[in-house]
């Protein structure tokens, strides 16, 4: 029998454009201390997590995000022992890092314990990394956690995506400065750089690059295609004290590990730093360079 009723979840990306996903079922809804949390089931994207009305990840495309956040810095930094993931409540990034045996400790800082519980319940594959004994989850404010750390981490991942919600503090100069301090002298920070396509988001994209460019000696942006992200086009920031993402990239060393991936490849690594002209122009403007 055909079911004629349709329920569509709509994630408005700007005032005039939205991503619509037909949902077959709503699996969860609650308002935590920090945000509104929803989990939906869909045919096109599988299960997907929504925070404050915005799609955070879906079963269908989360691998792209997680792989690009984890493998890019891991293929550059030759000696990673300690990793910090801020806002990594869904566990996807932490799970990615557990594939590397030389990593000794992974701190995950997430203020919203309820969000972690929801992810554990509905996305057990994504959160499997939380079961690894090297992973330690701290339920607290990311800015507070990193403030007191000094010369401690090889890699810091800022996993927060929304610059206007409770994680606003993770998009600030004070946060980037604290990360700089918390990293060792050859440390790397990878962070969500948003999508530069829509005008509303371009200004955030600009201010992030401006702040990080002034904080770190090396500051580059790379891209990926992620269907559930705004405009389907997403970027990441690669901020580093010593290693250059292309010049210090070691494809042979990475390939020798035989880590299974579905998106990331050594070829993709280099290509992801090749940006469209309009994005290059934006970055140059914020660096104070003339076009």
């Amino acid at each position, binding site marked *: 029998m055909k079911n004629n009723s349709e329920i569509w979840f709509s994630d408005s990306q700007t005032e005039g454009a939205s991503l619509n996903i037909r949902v077959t079922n709503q699996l969860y809804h609650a308002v935590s201390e920090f945000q509104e949390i929803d989990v939906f089931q869909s045919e096109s994207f599988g299960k997907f997590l929504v925070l404050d009305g915005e799609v955070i990840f879906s079963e269908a495309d989360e691998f792209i995000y997680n792989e690009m956040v984890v493998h890019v810095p891991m293929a550059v930094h030759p000696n990673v022992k300690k990793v910090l993931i801020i806002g990594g409540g869904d566990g996807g990034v932490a799970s990615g890092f557990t594939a590397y045996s030389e990593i000794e400790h992974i701190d995950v800082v997430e203020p919203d314990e309820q969000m972690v519980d929801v992810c554990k319940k509905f996305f057990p594959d994504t959160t499997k990394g939380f079961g690894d004994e090297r992973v330690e989850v701290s339920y607290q404010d990311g800015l507070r956690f990193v403030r007191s750390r000094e010369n401690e981490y090889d890699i810091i991942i800022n996993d927060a995506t929304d610059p206007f919600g409770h994680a606003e503090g993770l998009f600030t100069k*004070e946060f980037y400065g604290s990360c700089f301090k918390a990293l060792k002298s050859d440390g790397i920070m990878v962070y969500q750089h948003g999508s530069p396509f829509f005008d509303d988001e371009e200004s955030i994209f600009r201010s992030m690059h401006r702040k990080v460019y002034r904080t770190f000696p090396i500051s580059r942006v790379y891209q990926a295609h992620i269907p559930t992200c705004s405009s389907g086009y997403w970027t990441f920031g690669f901020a580093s004290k010593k290693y250059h993402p292309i010049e210090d990239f070691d494809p042979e060393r990475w390939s020798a590990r035989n880590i299974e991936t579905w998106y990331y490849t050594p070829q993709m690594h280099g290509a992801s730093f090749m940006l469209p002209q309009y994005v290059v122009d934006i970055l140059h403007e914020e660096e104070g360079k003339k076009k």
Partner: protein
Amino acid sequence: MNTEMQKRAPLCEALEKFKKKRVVPFDVPGHKRGRGNPELTQLLGQQCVGIDVNSMKPLDNLCNPVSVIAEAEELMADAFGAAHAFLMVGGTTSAVQAMVLSVCKAGEKIIVPRNVHKSVINALIICGAIPVYVKLKIHSVIGVALGMEVEALREAIRENPDAKAVLINNPTYYGICSDLKALTALAHEHGLKVLCDEAHGTQLYFAEGLPVAGMKAGVDMAAISMHKSGGSLTQSSVLLLGENADPAYVRQIINLVQTTSASYLLLASLDLSRRNLALRGRESFAKVIEMSEYARKEINEIGDYYAYGRELIDGSSVYDFDVTKLCIFTKPIGLTGIEVYDLLRDEYDIQMEFGDIGTIMAYISIGDRMQDIERLVGALSDIRRLYKKDKEELSYVDSVIPKVICSPQESFYAPKETLPIQETAGRVCGESVMCYPPGIPILSPGEKITEEIIGHILYAREKGCSLQGMADPTADHLQVLEGVHA
């Protein structure tokens, strides 16, 4: 306080009722519920312009309230434990001026601490009374003026037995409280009225564990900035009267300068804020105290910065401390308060309440969130990492109390001449010079200028403090009384 009655908001209820009647307006304001000014309606919203209405029978009249405004004032008085309350729409400045004008006339003396707000000095210019300044100690580390000491008041009364009143800040901008009960008792013993400037003290009436509030200490009048920590709209304020003040006379004084078209937006915001404070103030301020104390602890752990608190209490010049005031002494990182204040705004998108030569202040209130406290602490930590300089000796002259040569009114209206500031030592100042914020006068009209004071003005200017009150905004020149040498 009658909790059942406090659940009402008579003024807001009247406005709601009035809105539903859809009365055709052939009265002012001329925007007629916003229709005549669509851009304004777009900016403020229909809700807001729709209740921007004039005084009329169902909505009472602030100049002589008999119905809903009178009820709102009674509830306000009940909430604050006062005998009477006036809703004010001209800022706390108007409440302070009404207090001063109610207790002293031309030629009479009023005892005030040197760190009074400019609204007090302006009131003296209006009414012609003469200020008697009480010496305040300056804290040896943080360099701010402390509270009024009982002995200092006793001495001022002994030297000026004809003084009519004393005005006390409770607390100061920096959170410092005097022994208000003892000062009030002493003043009353000598027949002086006690006025309390509680521009920064709304929370004292509702929170637990904070210094004593004016009405509780038995003062005669208190000016309360509801719009600061109380949550009402900017420019709305409250004047409280104790048992022995005459509300009819005070009403006359208020009406001398108060508008006859009081804004119902401001009045409604006072009514709602009062209800909110009466019903939920205790929990809200408990949260404010918790946030302030947390921030204080975290900031002190960064190193160098000094976010001071209850440890300042010494039983005399700092009798008590209002922990909701988060002041941070920045001198140990080698930067002035104003420099850190500018860095926070320009580099970190954080706007502080004020920055002066040695201190910055964050105003923590019922609208703050923990995540924003984390940003402030994070930014201060980052500023220390990036901008710390070798310690520079910062000097203060807040302790200088100039000699009063003529009354503020006399000197305000006297013929004046303009001189380069360096040539003004020994002359009598004809205008106000203040560092703003916090609005404490360095010089007021009628005071003798000295080399030391000139040095302070130039230093404050060099450090980027906002100097206000002078005819020449650059402070290159000062106006002095023509032909008068002190």
